[in-house]
C-alpha cells in the first residue's frame, strides 16, 4: 500500500507543479541534504476510520516562485503566497484521493499553511516519503495516518 501511495503522490505532485506552476520537479530518489522549508502546507484526509494528512514543505524561494508562476505576476504578497500554497496542497490531496479512493469513502479537509517555527513543528520527527528538486530548491512531501480517528 505504501508503494502505491508513494507512486501516486509523486505522480500527482509532479502533475500539479508542471501544469499549474510551470515547474519541472526532479525526483530525488537518494534523499536530499536536510534542512526544512520555511512553509508547510497541510491537507487533511479522513475516511474509513482513518485520519491522515499530507504535508508539503517548501523553501521561501520555491514558495515565491510558485506563487509568481501561478498568478503570472512578478511580485506576490505574503497572504497570496500562503493562499497559493494552500491551493497547491488542495490539488495534490484532491488528486491523490481521486486516484486512490474510487468508492468515495475519503473526504478532504481544508488545507492550512504554517510558516517558520510552526512549519518546522509540523514535520519534526517525520521522514519525507518523497523529495523533489524543483529548479534547485527542495520540495519534501510527508504523510501521516492513524486508525480510529
Amino acid at each position: 500500500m505504501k508503494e502505491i501511495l508513494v507512486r501516486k503522490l509523486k505522480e500527482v505532485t509532479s502533475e500539479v507543479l508542471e501544469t499549474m506552476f510551470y515547474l519541472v520537479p526532479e525526483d530525488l530518489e537518494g534523499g536530499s541534504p536536510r534542512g526544512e522549508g520555511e512553509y508547510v502546507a497541510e491537507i487533511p484526509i479522513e475516511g474509513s476510520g482513518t485520519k491522515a494528512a499530507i504535508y508539503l514543505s517548501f523553501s521561501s524561494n520555491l514558495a515565491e516562485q510558485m506563487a509568481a508562476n501561478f498568478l503570472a505576476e512578478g511580485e506576490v504578497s505574503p497572504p497570496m503566497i500562503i493562499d497559493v500554497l494552500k491551493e497547491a496542497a488542495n490539488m495534490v490531496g484532491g488528486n491523490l484521493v481521486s486516484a486512490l479512493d474510487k468508492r468515495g469513502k475519503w473526504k478532504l479537509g481544508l488545507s492550512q499553511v504554517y510558516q517558520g517555527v510552526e512549519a518546522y513543528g509540523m514535520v519534526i520527527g517525520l521522514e519525507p516519503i518523497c523529495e523533489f528538486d524543483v529548479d534547485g530548491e527542495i520540495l519534501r512531501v510527508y504523510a501521516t495516518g492513524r486508525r480510529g480517528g
Partner: protein
Amino acid sequence: MSFNVLIVDDSPSMRQVIKKVIQISGFDVGELLEAGNGKEALEVLSSNWVDVILSDIHMPEMDGIEMLRRLSEEDLWKRIPVIMVSTEGREQVIEEAKRLGAKGYVKKPFNPEQIKEILMSVMGKEYERDTGQEA
C-alpha cells in the same frame, strides 16, 4: 455576444487565475464576478445577472454540490449553466454534479485551453438555445 461570469472558489488566487484565463481567451466578457463559496454565490446571484458560473466543489460553508441543488430549485437560476472546476475526480461526485445540472467539468490542475474550450462549448450551446442559430 457579451456574457457575465461568476467564479466561485474559496481560493482568491485560484479565482484570479481563472479570471486571467477568461480575460486572455478572447471572450467578450461583461462582468467577472467572484464568490468564496456557494452561499456567497447565491448572494451575488440575487443582485446580479449572471450568464455562466464556474465553481469549485470543495468549499467551506456551502460546497459546490449544495449550491447546484439550491440553483436547481429556483426557476430564475436553474437555467444558468454551471461548469465545475475542481480537484474532485471521483465518478460518483461528478455524476451527482451532472444530475443536479452541471453542464461541464474541468479537473484541477488544468491548462488554460481546457477552460477556454469548455466555455466555448457551453456558451455556444446557450447561444444556440437562445437564438436557434449556431454560435
